[in-house]
């Protein structure tokens, strides 16, 4: 990828980020509710104290000025202090982000691990049993309300069978010094297979809840793409060359058929990242989504603004990653 194209990417990022900032700022500004009152809650407080806090939060300035300050600071990577944690928003988000990333990645991997082989099998065995089962499974996958399904999973696997933990990220017996802050990876890196197993057991249910609808969509995409590819001339030509079936499927067909899957996976991962607060709530997963939703409810403006910007950046980055994958899969596309 040429540096020029990279500049283009960044240039593309800016209007999106600016737009997102404006929207989130305006939205928060128009939302009734006063963070100071929320913070003071039912406790002893005087009007002066409220005023002091308001000043601390910068809320005594006009909205436009606040937006200007926010933008200016954001450019330098400073997103201000979280109203309620009274620490830099950046730190607060950074602490919660790894959990969300780990969950999202796990869900993505799970979804890919389910959907690619299943999609390929369904296409190859078109209209046969596997195909029908995959179709039915996909339909269920996209039709399941995640919150409900999550609860059902907890009851089944955690409460009834006791195979898996109810909630949380890792057992306390495991103290693994952070490297990547992804518990599964860190425990492996630190040579603690027991902790890895534990972290994994915590990850399975929430990841499955998130992965299932995504796997459903991806399976369909993969199947359709594979069918299309299998019909194409170069597959016929590859057969005419007398290549083995395995080589035709996995080398000739799959590489091409992965392209749409990658696109859709990127989009889905984006929405996964921004939409897993429900699952985080159900499974007590200490991720960012829950934090953001809580922050909206308590009018923690700086945190919401920063998090939404982060999501937007991630969205653009994911598309970028998808583009890079394209070029690997399909040399015709150049960045």
């Amino acid at each position, binding site marked *: 990828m040429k540096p020029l194209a990279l500049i283009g990417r960044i240039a593309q990022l800016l*209007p*999106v*980020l600016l*737009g*997102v900032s404006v*929207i*989130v700022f305006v*939205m*928060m500004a*128009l*939302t*009734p*509710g006063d963070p100071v009152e929320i913070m003071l809650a039912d406790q002893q407080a005087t009007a002066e104290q409220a005023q002091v806090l308001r000043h601390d939060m910068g809320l005594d300035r006009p909205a436009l000025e606040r937006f200007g300050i926010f933008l200016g600071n954001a450019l330098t990577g400073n997103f201000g202090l979280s109203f309620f944690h009274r620490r830099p928003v950046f730190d607060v988000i950074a602490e919660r982000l790894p959990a969300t990333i780990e969950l999202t990645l796990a869900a993505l991997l799970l979804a890919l691990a389910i959907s690619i082989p299943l999609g390929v099998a369904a296409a190859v065995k*078109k209209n046969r049993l596997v195909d029908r089962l995959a179709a039915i499974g996909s*339909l*269920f996958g*996209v*039709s*399941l*309300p*995640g*919150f*409900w399904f999550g*609860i*059902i999973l907890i*009851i089944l696997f955690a*409460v009834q069978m006791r195979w898996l933990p109810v909630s949380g990220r890792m057992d306390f017996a495991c103290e693994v010094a952070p490297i990547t802050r992804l518990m599964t990876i860190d425990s492996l890196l630190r040579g603690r297979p027991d902790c890895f197993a534990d972290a994994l057991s915590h990850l399975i249910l929430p990841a499955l809840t998130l992965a299932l609808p995504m796997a459903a969509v991806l399976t369909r995409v993969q*199947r*359709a793409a594979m*069918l299309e590819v299998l019909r194409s001339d170069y597959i016929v030509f590859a057969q005419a060359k007398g290549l083995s079936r395995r080589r035709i499927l996995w080398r000739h067909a799959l590489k091409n058929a992965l392209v749409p899957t990658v696109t859709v996976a990127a989009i889905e991962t*984006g*929405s996964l*990242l*921004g*939409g897993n*607060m*429900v699952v985080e*709530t159900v499974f007590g997963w200490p991720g960012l*989504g829950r934090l*953001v*939703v809580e922050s*909206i*409810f308590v009018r923690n403006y700086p945190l*919401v603004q920063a*998090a*939404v910007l982060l*999501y*937007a950046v991630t*969205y*653009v980055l994911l598309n970028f990653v998808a583009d890079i994958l394209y070029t690997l899969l399909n040399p015709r596309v150049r960045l």
Partner: protein
Amino acid sequence: MSAAIQAPATLPEQAETPTWQSVKRFSSDGFSVAAAIAVLIFVLLAILAPWIAPHDPYETDLLRRLQPPAWMEGGEWSYVLGCDALGRDILSRIIYGSQVSITIGLAVVLIATAIGTVLGLAAGYMRGWVDIAISRVVDILLGFPYLIFAIALMAMMGPGLQNIILALVYKEWVVPARVVRGEVLAAREMEYVEAARAIGAPRLHIMFREILPNILSPVIVVSTIRMAHVIILEASLSFLGIGVQPPTASWGSMVADGRGFILDAWWVSTFPGIAILILVLSINVASQGLRDAFDPKFSD
């Protein structure tokens, strides 16, 4: 060549519009028809709720709190699916709840599709700054995590059916807009569009009379799929506590309300959960049938 296969050996005298063909193809697919009928039944339930529901869905009776379904110990046949935490009949609430899900699903998808189609057409056909502006807005909205957007909007506007519809529409139009734009970009290069220009057809005519009818089927297909999404989204919003107003029963809020009792009074949230599953499943099956019928290149 493939066209040659499709055209029957002797041309039928009666005109067969492509749409009619698709409808015929759809109706020959038993599975999809069954799903469509299921959707229809839900619609009927919603419309006829006041006459069908065995009880007043809002009538509380604390003495019936968490009464189990009829077939379980302590259940009664007049409250077939049991009662919720305030002693309201779950079956009646599910029947009334279909009003919410279906109203929201339909309203959101209709409005969003209308907006998205017009904007997508404009962006795809006019190109230039119109395209840039619309595409940027689409990008911005796509970069905005959906649930957060909806939650913030709901916090801003307050809860209520109308506001939920609005909150969902605000972002939902992006999907049809993108689909339409993509289709228009392909369609505008087709020679029939150029032919229309060559005979001096005005822009609006080309956009709405030449291109639109041809891209309608992917739009319809996408819209039905989105309807399923929207219904789940509404349920999620209700689950997060910013859904429709009580005592209106929404399936999502019923699941949410009942989840505290899930270990013992599983029926409170399980039945509405199943209702969502069935409706969304039917819509999805039907939309897949639509896609196969309207877009034969997808069907396999």
